[in-house]
């Protein structure tokens, strides 16, 4: 039983690191601003989420797990909201998406 929990927590930690790497790659290499910030949002949700889950599994039922879950809650709450704020502000200030001419993106709701 203990080794199963151990394996699971290691899987979560490695998965979390993988997603954080993917997110950094996205921020560096994707061509469009909007797709870049979408990639950045992955760190906060999947990346941190999986890692904190893995750490909670390692800690077992203790105060540390409660603190980890609170941290997870706040990161999940604020991460996507930040990306949303970035996207909305950029859109309002007139930044064009990359596919703006192909898709009919000329009806901005402002």
């Amino acid at each position, binding site marked *: 039983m203990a080794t199963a929990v151990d394996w699971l927590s290691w899987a979560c930690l490695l998965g979390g690191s993988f997603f954080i790497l993917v997110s950094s790659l996205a921020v560096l290499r994707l061509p469009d601003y909007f797709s870049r910030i979408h990639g950045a949002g992955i760190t906060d949700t999947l990346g941190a989420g999986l890692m904190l889950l893995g750490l909670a599994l390692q800690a077992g039922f203790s105060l540390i797990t409660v603190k980890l879950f609170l941290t997870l809650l706040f990161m999940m*709450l*604020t991460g996507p909201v930040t990306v*949303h704020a970035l996207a909305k502000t950029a859109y309002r200030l007139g930044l064009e998406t990359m596919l703006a001419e192909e898709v009919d993106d000329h009806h901005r709701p402002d």
Partner: protein
Amino acid sequence: MAVTFVIFRMRDLFAAVMLMGFFSLLSAALFTVMDAVDVAFTEAAVGAGVSTVLMLRTLALTRSRAKQRFNRPAVIPLLAVLAIGGVLVYGTFDMPRYGDPDAPIHNYMAPRFVEDAPGEEDSVDEIGVPNIVTAVLASYRGYDTFGETTVIFTAGIGVLLLLGGSHRHEIGGLHLREDIVLRVSLKVVIAFLMLFALYVQFHGDYGPGGGFQAGVIFAAAIILYTLVFGLKKAESVFKRRSIEALIAGGVLLYGSVGLASMVLGDNFLDYDHLAHDPVHGQHYGILLVELGVGITVTAVMVALYFLFATRRSSPGELSPAAASAEDTQVIETA
């Protein structure tokens, strides 16, 4: 010293600003060599970072070569500076060599703070606070922390004097009030942020924390509120006058604790007689002075943010934030 001399004599101001940044970097490196890493990164951030940026911005507004000045050499000030400097240098001859293991600080102060020296009490016995850093900061070296709080106070007042003044009309600042996602999520987050700030403030006795950190977190909560709900609403809650009063209030609280202990017969900022026994007195003293520090830090950061949020970049022209706020406001009512 060579760098300082060159900065002084140079008339190309852009190069002078770059050299000032280089000087800060040298100081930061010196501090790192001396094992004072926290001072080093503060110096690097402020001197090589923020100062340089502000100077460059100033240069953009004025010309970039200093005018030639023909002054008679000022003899009396020069003599005064040389005399005082000479006395200071003479004073350093008596100090222990750098890193000397026989220096008094390693023999008397550190053992007293940290471990149970035979026959002496350590800081946990004398002050009863598990976090030695807080014990040293707020009690053994409370006067230095008083000076630090006064520095923050002076910096805030200085910026308010330089940049404040008659810009009393409300421009409004950039806000995203019409965005429901931000409004709802931030209402939750801000409440927890303020709670966390209070936790950090009072947890300084047992773990990392204390007034400075808590003040910044509290100010961050207020700034988040201002970003989303607009400067007008934020200022109706946190009035400018009260914020300015609080900037002084924190320092006043700190000084009053010191004066109270003088009234009770001890030295300035000696907390032993503030309660029925010395350990409790120390607890009350540390609590009150950290509260004073937290209040001043919060108020200074909030005041500076409100100041910058309504600032015009040059007379007669709106700052970019205010300009786009006007755009969004016009579009909103359409």
